């Protein structure tokens, strides 16, 4: 199961890298969203996939599954959600003011 997960993470990172390296801004943003999914799966996998019961004392005598990775992932998801939302709005505003949706047009000039 772990090996399968690692392959999946690898595929996600590969896809995301391809997207991030493209010139269209929207693709880059989608790429960063895919990147964050990959790292969430990575945290889940390195923490150990389901090995025991739910970590509640009254429910079972153990061994318990590590609950911490879920907590970390939840926090990371919230943060990546906020950042993605912000960067989408920023990209939209930038498109409206600079009339560019392509990174090759954003080099800036030396006389500013």
């Amino acid at each position, binding site marked *: 199961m772990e090996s399968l997960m690692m392959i999946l993470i690898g595929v996600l990172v590969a896809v995301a890298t391809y997207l991030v390296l493209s010139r269209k801004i929207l693709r*880059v943003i989608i790429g960063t969203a895919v990147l*964050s999914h990959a790292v969430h799966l*990575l945290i889940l996998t390195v923490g150990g996939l389901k090995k025991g019961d739910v970590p509640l004392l009254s429910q079972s005598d153990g061994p318990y599954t590590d609950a911490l990775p879920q907590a970390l992932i939840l926090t990371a998801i919230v943060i990546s959600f*906020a*950042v993605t939302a912000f960067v989408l709005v*920023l990209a939209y505003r930038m498109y409206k003011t600079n009339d560019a949706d392509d990174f090759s047009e954003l080099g800036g000039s030396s006389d500013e």
Partner: protein
Amino acid sequence: MNNIIVLPMIVPIITAILLVFLRDFIKLQRIISLMTMGFVIGVTALLLGLVQSGGIMKLDFSGWLPPYGILFVADSFALILVLTASIITAICLIYAFATIGERHERMFFYPFVLFLIAGVNGSFLTGDIFNLFVCFEVMLLASYVLVALGGEKVQLREALKYVLINVVASWMFLVALAFLYGTVKTLNMAHIAQRVAELGQDPILTTVSILFLIVFALKAGLLLFFWLPGSYSVPPTAVQALFAALLTKVGVYALFRTFTLMFPLNQEVTHLVIGIMAGLTIIAGCMGALAGKDVRTIATYNVIIAIGFILIGLATGTETGFAGSIYYLVHDMFAKALLFLLIGTMVYLTGEVIVKRMSGLIRNYPLFGWIYFIVMCALAGIPPLSGFIGKLLIGQGAIEGENFVLLALGFASSIIVLYSLLRILLASFFGETTISEDHQKPIPKLAMTAFSLLALCLIVLGVGAEAFAPFIEDAAKTLADPSIYIEAVLGNSE
């Protein structure tokens, strides 16, 4: 009593939320934000005194004993930086009152500055590496907004690049965290240090530490500073000064914590890499500062040189080097804030950014010119100003650690810093004045107050270095001997 450790982070957050509802009452917003920073400064000074007499303090949230819960740890190093950051924020706020303009003030400028300082203070105080990530994100989100606020073409363009680079850096932070958790199964920094010491720093852990190095180097502008000159020169002056003083320094703090506390064992690899990166940063920063034609570029490359210089202290791995780095870090935060405020004001007064097109400013604004002279001397390390003692101690540390190449590079960079700033002084301040007395724009009184306060801090820090020595020595001792920190955090649970 330990509960007050959380105040430097939580009070700015609460007041920032409050200020959102006071959008139309600009005067009230100003008063509340300045009072908040005053309160934080007071609390931090009190904490620093308590830590000095009673040792490192910690606060376990909800009573979850370490290593299970999240905690805040207040040691001298963290508190010195919290205090410096809060004082600088307060002074930058004073400058912002006079210059930022009503449009910014109505668009929640003050709440975002408070969120920024909350994230910065949280990053300094936290004792949990995942919590460090969260505080970094709080700080970064506020900084994204502050770069873009104003909505000019350049700002939006640079903000987008800045955000995307930081998103990728944060992603790498999470990857490093995942591997760290997979290897040592804990996130408490003191507990990580203990586990790493037990396991020995094997190649996997060294790789993880290098991942952390890349992440924090990106945030600190250590070698990976390609994003810095662009995004630091577009926002309004007060924001530029805040960024130059605080943001990169949080990355530097994280580097110090990581490589003195958590991964101190494999120094021949990690500290060598840090040393090489610091040296290259200094060289590249000097080239940028020498080549720059406009004042903002010269100032931003000066930030980069300072980052390289501070990390020489870490690369030497000696207690004297650490003490020097802390001195220089505090000095540099004040000096860079002042430099950026002055440079921004020069651009405002003359309407020009190219050094050669300004002239004779000292005739129109004598005090302004002399304050620039003070900050230049401080940055070059001329005694009795604040830069001298830090440079001296870092130099001593480099000799003790036998890093002679870094020593030579560091001191050579002082001359380049002096030259690049002297060029501005000679071209823009001396010479025939280009502004006639009728067209002379006045410098707002509050802005002048902000300059004077920062210049005063630089002088006090230099002349009164002896008075600050006990705090700095205590901080350096904890960095050099991480067992003090580990004992203070984990001691109760055994």
